[in-house]
C-alpha cells in the first residue's frame, strides 16, 4: 500500500453555474483527507481531461444539473481514455434521470450520485474503488 493521498478533480462542465454541490463535495473530500482540485465553472470536456492529466488525479467528479450530461459525460470519459488515463474513475453527481443511468455507466461512468446522497457515501466509494498505485 502506498501512502499517496487520493487525488480528485471536481469539475463543472457546461454553462450551468449552480456550484453549491461541487463546492460542498470538494470540501467534504478535503475533510476526508483527499487532495481536491476544483476546476471552476464552465469547463469544456477538453479542459477537464487536460486538467485531470496535468494533476494526475485518481478520479474526476463531474457535477451537472443542466440536463447536458448525455452530451458531456461520455466525452470526458473518452478524452481521459485517449490520454491513457484508463484507471481514472469518472463519477457524476447531480440531476440525472433514472433512465439515463445504465447508458452512462455503459459509456464508462463509474457511478452516478443523485440528489440526497451523503458525502460519506461518496468518500467510501472513492476509497473502495480508486486503484492503489505503487
Amino acid at each position, binding site marked *: 500500500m502506498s501512502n499517496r493521498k487520493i487525488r480528485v478533480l471536481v469539475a463543472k462542465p457546461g*454553462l450551468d453555474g449552480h456550484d*453549491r454541490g461541487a463546492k460542498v463535495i470538494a470540501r467534504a473530500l478535503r475533510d476526508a483527507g483527499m487532495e481536491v482540485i476544483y476546476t471552476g*465553472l464552465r469547463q469544456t470536456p477538453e479542459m477537464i481531461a487536460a486538467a485531470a492529466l496535468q494533476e494526475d488525479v485518481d478520479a474526476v467528479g463531474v457535477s451537472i444539473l443542466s440536463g447536458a450530461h448525455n452530451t458531456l459525460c461520455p466525452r470526458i470519459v473518452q478524452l481521459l481514455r485517449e490520454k491513457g488515463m484508463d484507471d481514472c474513475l469518472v463519477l457524476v453527481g447531480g440531476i440525472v434521470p433514472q433512465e439515463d443511468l445504465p447508458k452512462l455507466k455503459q459509456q464508462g461512468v463509474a457511478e452516478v450520485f443523485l*440528489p440526497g446522497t451523503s458525502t460519506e457515501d461518496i468518500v467510501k466509494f472513492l476509497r473502495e474503488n480508486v486503484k492503489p498505485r505503487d
Partner: protein
Amino acid sequence: MPETKEPSSPVEVEKERWENETLDPALAKHPERKKSFQTVSLKEVDRLYTPADTEHVDFSRDIAFPGEFPYTRGIHPTGYRGKLWTMRQFAGFSTPEETNARFKYLLEQGQNGLSVAYDLPTLMGYDADSTLSEGEVGKCGVAVSSLADMEVLFDGIPLEKVTVSQTINAPASVLLAMYLVVAEKQGANWDKISGTLQNDILKEYIAQKEWIYPIKPAMKLVVDTFEFCTNHVPRYNPISVSGYHIREAGATAAQELAFTLRDGIEYVAWGVDAGLEVDRFVPRISFFFNAHNDFFEEIAKYRAARRIWAREMKERFGSSNERTLQLRFHTQTAGVSLTVQQPLNNIVRVAIQALAGVLGGTQSLHTDAYDEALALPTDRAALIALRTQQIIAEETGVVNTIDPLGGSYYLEALTQKMEDEALDYFRKIDAMGGMVGAIERGFPQREIQDSAYQYQKAVERGEQVIVGVNKYAMTDETSGVPILVIDESVRTHQVERLEQTRSQRDAGAVAKALDRLKLAAQNNENTMPATIDAVRAYASLGEICSALRDVYGIYEEPAF
C-alpha cells in the same frame, strides 16, 4: 446551563414560576426528544415565547398597521381582501413554439401572469449555434437567440394585457429590448406595458453565477435599464432583486434577507450616483424571495424585509414617498428542498412553503412542481402546482384577515431577530465599501458556502431530517413518475431558424447597429437605444453580447 439572569418583568417572574412548578417535573418524567431544537437555518429555537421576548418590539413603531410605515404587516391596507397575489408560474423549455403553447395552457387554467425561464445559452448570451451551447439548447428553459424567436414566444399573447416576468440577468438589457420590440409590433404602447425583468446581476456574482461582463460595467447596464424604463416604460419593473438564488446556494434565511436587501441598497446607490431621482426609479424596484421549509422563520423573513427596506430608504436616501418605502416581492418555493426520493411528497412541501409566502404577504407566487428534482415539470405536475395556490387562496381562509400571525410572541421575536442579523451584515458590508466591494472580496460567497456545508453536515448527522432521504427512506420510489425529456432536435430547430434569420436580414444594417452599440458603451452613454436598434435589425443575442464583451471584457471569478 441553568439560567442565572435575574427575571426583570412580571412575565419573566411568572415564567420562572411555571418552569419550577410545571415544566421541571414534566421534564423529569419525560425528557424532550432532543437537546437542541433548530430552524432549517440551524438557529436555536426556544421552548416557549412570551411577552418578555417581545418587550423591545413596540407596536406602533415596529408592527403598526398594514399600508403604513414600516409596512411590517404588508403594503396594502386591505391585505388579500382587496386583491389576491398574482399566481405566476415560471415556465420555459425547448423551442419558443413549445413554451408558447405551455403559456397559453397556463393562462387557460386561470394563471394570471407569465414568467419566462430561458435556457443556459440564452442566460449566458450565446446563440443556439455556438459550440458552447451543445447539449444545452432548450434544456433548462426556452431557447431565444434573436427577435425572431421572441416573436414566436409571445405569438397570440397580448403584452399590453398580460404581465410577463423574465428571468434573465447578464444579457437582460437585450431581452428587454426584444420584449419591447415585440410589444411594439403587436401595436402595444410602451406606457401601458408592465412586467418584470430579473436583471439582478449582483446575485449572479454572489450565488447563481451566470455572469458575462466584469461587475462594474454590468452594474452600468443595469442602471441603463433603470433610466430607460423610468423615462419610456414607466409601469415596468426593470429589476427583481433576488434572494431566491442566494438561498438555493445554501444561505440561511437571515443571509438571504441581508444580502438581498443590501444588493437592493447598492442598486439604489448606483442609480442615485448616475443622477436618477430616488422617488422616480426606486418605486419600480421589486424583490424576489425563497420560501423554504421552516414555516415561521420564512414568515418572519418577509415581515422583516418590508420593515428594513422602509427604514433604509428613509434613513439612507431620505425618501418619504410611500411607493419608494414599500417593498414588493415575488416568492418561489424552495427548489433545493425538493427530493428525488418519493417525489409526490414534494407536493406537500410546496403547499406548506407557499402558505408561508402567503402569510408573509407576497405579491406574487410560483409554486414548484413535484417533479422538479427530476427534470423540468410535465403539464400534469405544473397543473398541481398551480392548483396548490388556488386551494390556499380559495379554501383555507388564511386570506380573510391581514397578517394573521402578527402579534405571535414567537413570530414577532423572530422578525426582530431577522432584522438585527440583517443590520449586522449591513454594517460589515458597508465597511467593505458596499456590496460590490464585498463581492470582490468574496465575502457573501464564503458566508454562503459555509452555511451550505454546515447544513449538509447537519443532514448527514441526522439533525436535519429530510423525509424519504435520511429518514423514512424506501427503495425504487421514483419509478412511475413520468418526466419531460428535451432532445437534441431542439437545437437543430433553433439553429435552422437562426440561419434563416441571418440570411433574410440586412447585414449592413446589423453591422452598423452593432458598431453604434459599441460606441455607446465606449462613450458611457445609455446603451438601451442602440440595443433596441440592433434587436430591430435582427442582430442575434450572441452578436450583441459579443459586441459588448469586446468593449467591457469578461468576468473571471477569483478563487476562494
